[in-house]
């Protein structure tokens, strides 16, 4: 071996396997037997240990289930080929450079294998998350059907509790967080002028953890005793000692989803830090890159805390430890502190990328530079720092130390300041612009207006006396949906419509897009605004039944929510139809300056055949002759020279 800069030896691409050898090659043929093998290994080790230690019974359902929730996914990942490269590397064998040959998607099958192309992974993410979005939405429809009238009609109490728990868990861990990761995956490397993410194989692996987590959570409905029914917050001791085995499905599902988002975030951070194009200083990065950078920092630092909290609950549940059992010296409130130390930053994990998307869309569609670019970036950092100091505002009535309440109220209130800066800056960006109301812009404006309402109801909840009255009521349900539906979901839609031409090379149907927006916007407000009143008046959240005086309004909300659910059909139809039959899209239909629009739609496999030189800021709309980036000096060909007919 000669002196090389890499310390690995690459073999050429593997010849396509034939006959029974296809069972050994990474792919779906290897999945079934690898999964079965790992199931056997998991069960075998468990039984062996229990037999050696003399524990009775040797075959214990809850323990086996817990172990298999770890072992079986590993089997699946090993089968589909998530570890092949690393196993070869660890054994010192020549590695197959699959990050090169495996790039790109030439047929639909390429979306169903370990694929190391960030653009393919981005689409894998988005399609998967939309699948879980629809599934979680259907659970919400069931819930609203049950709540249309007081008393129990369709499901029993335990199932109802399972419905809202799985609904929230899927929406948060399998939709909002990974959907942003998907958009980021597609767009970030293009935006910063990088050929791919820093760790393509890790990127592929972190995607494939997602369906595992999702099906684990959905699958808990099939577990004996039903799905986990302690809410997505899974408060101990309810979750640790009073739940069926389905609760372990939640604990482990969160671990898989959490591992996925930590790995993605790590990848984003390394990519953004080490792979920016020459000239792309931090102060020249588009705000979506800034947003993903801060979000990824939050994920890397905070997510281990929810992993910890779910480990504790699972140990209490399965191993009968005493983290939250006060009789044996545990501390029940400890769960909430640890959980919210992640889950409050998680709110920003679910918001900041949306802020980034909104900034891109509003600036491009208003044809104006972002107002106060530096303050926009700095406010992201401010939210990141403050986000770690406010967790206990979820616990004002939880019985924590009373002296903690006022400091936590103050820090929570202070977060309104950087958030306000962002909102006002968007408004100032709109001002005097030349606004084009294409669908992404509608969703972005819908986001700003709905997020303002959600932010204002957040002020109510941050003020301790009002929070004491309204916490754990439908007021909170309304607030969280204004922030997460009106905030995150609207920006996800904005992002999907905005980059749809780039991702698919085709244009979506503008009329259907507008229809989708208005149906969603109206249905959303009709569904969630009345919930504010319900909560203040005395309807607690997470109830399967309620007093008859709330019956009429609940019926109204249920009907509105069905309309809201139906609006998703328009979206899905538009996406599917346009992806297949839509008109071919231009490279830069929005006339954006950022780098992802300077390549073809969809971009070539390695994004750039030449790394661009960044020479200016990304939002110089209206500045004569401004450039964000140039390809090899000044040899640009103007749009008019593109052959047109």
């Amino acid at each position, binding site marked *: *071996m000669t*002196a*090389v*800069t890499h*310390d690995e*030896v690459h073999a050429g691409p593997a010849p396509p396997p034939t006959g029974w050898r296809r069972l050994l090659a990474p792919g779906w043929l290897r999945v079934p037997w690898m999964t079965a093998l790992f199931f056997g290994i998991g069960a075998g080790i468990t039984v062996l240990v229990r037999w050696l230690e003399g524990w009775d019974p040797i075959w214990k359902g809850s323990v086996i289930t817990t172990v298999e929730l770890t072992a079986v996914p590993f089997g699946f990942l090993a089968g589909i080929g998530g570890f092949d490269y690393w196993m070869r*590397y*660890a*054994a*010192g064998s020549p590695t197959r450079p699959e990050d*090169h*040959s495996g*790039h*790109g998607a030439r047929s639909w099958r390429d979306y169903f294998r370990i694929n190391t192309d960030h653009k393919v992974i981005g689409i894998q993410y988005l399609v998967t998350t939309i699948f879980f979005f629809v599934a979680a939405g259907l659970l919400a429809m069931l819930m609203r059907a049950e709540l249309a009238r007081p008393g129990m009609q369709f499901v029993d109490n335990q199932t109802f509790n399972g419905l809202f728990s799985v609904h929230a868990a899927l929406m948060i861990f399998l939709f909002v967080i990974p959907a942003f990761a998907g958009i980021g995956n597609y767009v970030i490397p293009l935006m910063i*002028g990088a*050929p791919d993410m*820093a*760790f393509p194989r890790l990127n592929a692996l972190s995607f494939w953890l997602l369906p595992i987590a999702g099906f684990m959570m959905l699958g808990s409905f099939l577990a004996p005793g039903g799905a986990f029914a302690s809410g997505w917050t899974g408060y101990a001791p309810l979750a640790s000692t009073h739940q069926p085995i389905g609760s372990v499905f939640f604990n482990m599902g969160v671990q898989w989803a959490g591992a996925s988002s*930590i790995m993605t975030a*790590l*990848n984003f*951070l*390394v990519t953004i*830090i*080490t*792979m*920016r*194009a020459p000239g792309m200083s931090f102060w020249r990065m588009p705000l979506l890159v800034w947003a993903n950078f801060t979000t990824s920092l939050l994920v*890397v*630092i905070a*997510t*281990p*805390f929810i*992993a*910890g*909290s779910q*480990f*504790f609950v699972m*140990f209490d549940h399965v*191993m*009968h*430890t*005493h*983290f939250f*059992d006060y009789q*044996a*010296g*545990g*501390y029940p*409130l*400890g769960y909430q*502190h*640890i959980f919210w*130390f992640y889950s409050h930053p998680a709110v920003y994990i679910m918001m900041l990328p949306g802020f980034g998307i909104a900034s891109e869309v509003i600036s491009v569609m208003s044809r104006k530079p972002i107002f106060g670019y530096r303050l926009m970036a700095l406010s992201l950092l401010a939210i990141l720092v403050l986000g770690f100091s406010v967790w206990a505002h979820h616990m004002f009535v939880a019985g924590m130390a009373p002296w903690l309440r006022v400091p936590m109220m103050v820090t929570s209130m202070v977060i309104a300041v950087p958030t306000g800066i962002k909102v006002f800056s968007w408004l100032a960006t709109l001002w005097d612009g030349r606004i084009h109301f294409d669908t992404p812009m509608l969703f972005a404006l819908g986001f700003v207006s709905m997020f303002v309402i959600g932010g204002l109801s957040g002020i109510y909840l941050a003020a301790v006396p009002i929070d004491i009255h309204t916490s754990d009521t439908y007021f909170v349900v309304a607030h969280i949906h204004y922030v997460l539906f009106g905030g995150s979901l609207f920006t996800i839609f904005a992002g999907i419509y905005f980059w749809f031409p780039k991702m698919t090379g085709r244009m979506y149907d503008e009329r259907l897009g507008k229809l989708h927006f208005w149906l969603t916007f109206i249905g959303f407000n009709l569904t969630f605004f009345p919930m504010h009143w319900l909560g203040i008046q005395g309807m607690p959240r997470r109830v399967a039944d309620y007093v008859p005086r709330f019956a009429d309004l609940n019926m109204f909300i249920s009907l509105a929510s069905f309309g809201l659910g139906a609006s998703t059909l328009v979206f899905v139809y538009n996406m599917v139809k346009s992806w297949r039959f839509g008109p071919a899209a231009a490279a830069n239909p929005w006339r954006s300056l950022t780098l992802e629009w300077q390549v*073809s739609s969809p971009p*070539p*496999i*390695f994004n750039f*055949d030449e*790394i661009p030189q960044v020479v200016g800021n990304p939002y110089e709309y209206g500045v004569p002759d401004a450039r964000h980036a140039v390809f090899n000096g000044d040899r640009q060909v103007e749009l008019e020279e593109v052959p047109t007919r």
Partner: protein
Amino acid sequence: MTVQAEAHAAHPPEAHQSSRVDARTLGMFLFIASEVMLFGSFFTAYFFVRVSAHTHWPTAGHELPVFVAGINTIILVSSSFTMHWALQAIKRGNRAGLQAGLTLTFLLGLTFLLTQIREYSRLGFAPYTDAFGTIFYCLTGLHGAHVFVGLTLLLAATIRSYRGHYTADAHWGVEIPGIYWHFVDVMWIVVYTTVYIL
């Protein structure tokens, strides 16, 4: 896709390196930051249990093998020295030094892990005995799991060193496990000080 891009499909253009830190090293340090926070959540639980106990620590009826664990600490910390030595050796192109250093590190780590397991069976309390047992086993067990992961990485590096990989110019496959191994040791120092001594 342009013809140009098709021609380059087999090789991505070299990304521009916009930071002084190598991407792999940076990735490992960020991963370690995340791991530190995982330990942080366990230490938070430890803090809650200890504070809400309102009594002498360890709580009545628990004796910890401070001395044996102290010896074990010395074993683990010395394995960091051998790790560092191994990497210095390959930086000078000394393969034998690399192999000896990695093998020693692996064996020392394994000794630590086995001693720890042996101690578990002699403690006289279990994770389900009470909250002290819970937090003791979970903190040391979490660390043990990290030692196991570190050993796996070291094993891979060791195997590769015997199969002729790594040179004075290309040795990040040793450097990355080395960083992780130092992290495991630092974490043990923290765990040992807080759980066993203070």
